[in-house]
């Protein structure tokens, strides 16, 4: 199962669909597994981050498992399952070094480039959303929804009265009707 359609699609809309070859079906040729591994050093070194994450979480869980205050500290007590999982995570982290760092990375695992503008947008969006949540039950829900929506729309570069006024009002009205009027959520 692919979770993001972007990973598996043909990105260029004008690209012709290649006819299948004898012996190698179109599906196989299109499948990400059929693509050769990327062996560039920066790509392979980048894979050390997921390795560190897996091993780090594993070690943290092992340490925290020792702190569990349990009535039964026997072999099959509350520590048994987390210890097993943490050990397996550390082993899998080691396996990632063998597969991705030493052999190479599949092209599908290389994400689109981030932009500085994109990261700024992410941080400002985070601040707007946290502010939005904290103002629940403080100000009128429809009012803060319209304000937050207008701020986000402006942040993402949309301009004009339709984007900055009509769209936020529609969102505010729909959410108010759905959550407060129909579902009775105390917002």
């Amino acid at each position, binding site marked *: 199962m692919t979770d993001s359609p972007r990973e598996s699609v043909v990105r260029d809309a004008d690209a012709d669909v290649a*006819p299948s070859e004898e012996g190698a079906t179109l599906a196989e040729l299109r499948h990400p597994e059929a693509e050769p591994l990327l062996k560039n050093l920066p790509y392979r070194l980048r894979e050390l981050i997921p390795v560190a994450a897996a091993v780090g979480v594993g070690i943290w869980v092992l340490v925290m498992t020792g702190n569990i205050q349990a009535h039964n500290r026997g072999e099959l*007590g509350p520590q048994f*399952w987390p210890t097993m999982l943490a050990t397996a995570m550390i082993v*899998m982290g080691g396996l990632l070094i063998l597969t991705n760092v030493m052999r190479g990375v599949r092209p599908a*695992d290389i994400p689109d480039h981030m932009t500085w503008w994109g990261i700024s947008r992410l941080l400002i969006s985070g601040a707007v959303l946290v502010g939005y949540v*904290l103002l629940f039950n403080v100000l009128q829900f429809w009012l803060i929804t319209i304000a937050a929506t207008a701020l986000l729309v402006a942040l993402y570069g949309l301009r004009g009265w339709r984007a900055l006024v009509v*769209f936020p009002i529609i969102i505010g009205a729909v959410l108010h009707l759905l959550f407060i009027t129909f579902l009775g959520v105390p917002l």
Partner: protein
Amino acid sequence: MIEPLMTGMLPDLFHAASSQLVLANSVLDGASVVLRWDTLIYIGLGMLVGMLVGAFPGVTATMAVALASGFTLTMEPLQGLAVLLTIYVAAQFGDRVPAILINTPGTPSSISTTFDGYPMAKNGQAGLAMTVSAFGSAFGMVFGTILLALFAIPIAGLAREFGPPELFALVVFGLTMMIGVSSGRITKGLIAGMFGLFLATVGRDPITGDQRFTLGILELNGGVPFIPVIIGLFGLAEVLNQMITHRRNEKQIKPIQQLGRWFPDGATFRRILKPMGVGAGTGSVVGLVPAVGGDIAGIIAWDNAKRVSKNKHEFGKGSIEGLTAGDTSSTATIGGSVTTTMALGIPGDSVMAVLIGSMMIWGIQPGPALFANDPSLVYSLAMILLIATVLSLAVSLVRMKSMVKLLELKNQYLWVIILVFCIVGTFSINNSVFDVMVMLIMGLVGLFMLRFGFPPGPAVLGLILGPLAESNLRRTLIGGGWEAFLGSPIALVLFAISAAALILPPLRAMRARRKAAMAGKDEGMSVLIP
């Protein structure tokens, strides 16, 4: 003469007749609770949302169902199920539109639609491609739903015999199947699954009740709330990823405007019958395998249809047969997915994993006991799927120029809608700011997973199935040690299939790479390996 009748045939006849009556009663009960005006309104709402979700590339059915689960939790369980299932079904119709008009699948299930749908559109047959695709999708759905109605209760009956070793093996089976199809990312899939299993350990131990990993936070005593985790991983993370990679002057792809002929003629209908059969057969079998979704089923059926077709050369260049087979197959999986999800408690795909999360909050535990206790539920679900299919087909057959316009909507509007829905939907579950914070944190975790190639599906599955896995493993080991697994043929078979699911994909990848390299050589091209 009367005596043998009384002692032999008559009780058998009476038993058979009463079984038929019970079955008919269950069917009527199940159907009648769906055929209420309020439930039908919710199905209509789900259909609208699903069609829109499918039409927008980048918004997956999983994301939509995760977001919708935020506000359906306050509904009656059946009404909530009606909304979520209908979104899932309708998204399978709506996602064909961008696949055909801009060569971009609306959801992963329509990957195979792009193989022939877009070439057909380029040949001036976009309208025909969309209607044929809708007929194929509807046929697949109906076929899958009939299988659900026929086999869900017998499968649940078999699974009721399972003890702790078999149940643990079943969880391992479900997890490994999902990891095995994670686009070749086996190791990262395993790590994601273990992360989900670890999240499930937060809170009280399922056997002793001791607190674990709560970090002194009161709200974590009951465990990590899974709907916020699901919304964060599937909804927020995808938007954040699009946000950080989107460029200011990025151009939106222009859809094909000329739709051409709309309705298929008799000859076209006759031509698509065979690929419909191939697609329905393939999708039904693939759908029964836990965690394998419509994307894979569509590709397999496309390949199968090509093998049996007299017009192999047309495949990939605008074959109506290839389009029909792929689309029929990807929707035929839904019946199988619902069957394994409800009868075994093992999600058929990532949408079903989200659905299980919602059901558990409603107090419904999917698994072998569900259909045994309430057999009419099977028929309620089947009826919801059928109504959703008929409505989606009807909407798909209306020639709507506005659908083309819809594809020109800027992504930024979608980001805002999804972000606000993530926040308000999560808050509305328990009126809890803590839940919203969990969702935001899991959104960042999900972004990390997306950027570094960890599939989020196994993490959610691990979170949902974690308590079942841990308690059954420990019960098995306390009862009979590791040898208990050797005494269970069902567990051994499930472990063997799980091992194959992890070992075979890397072998298949090697074979596919070798074939791709050979194909490149045959064309006189060099395969670039940086």
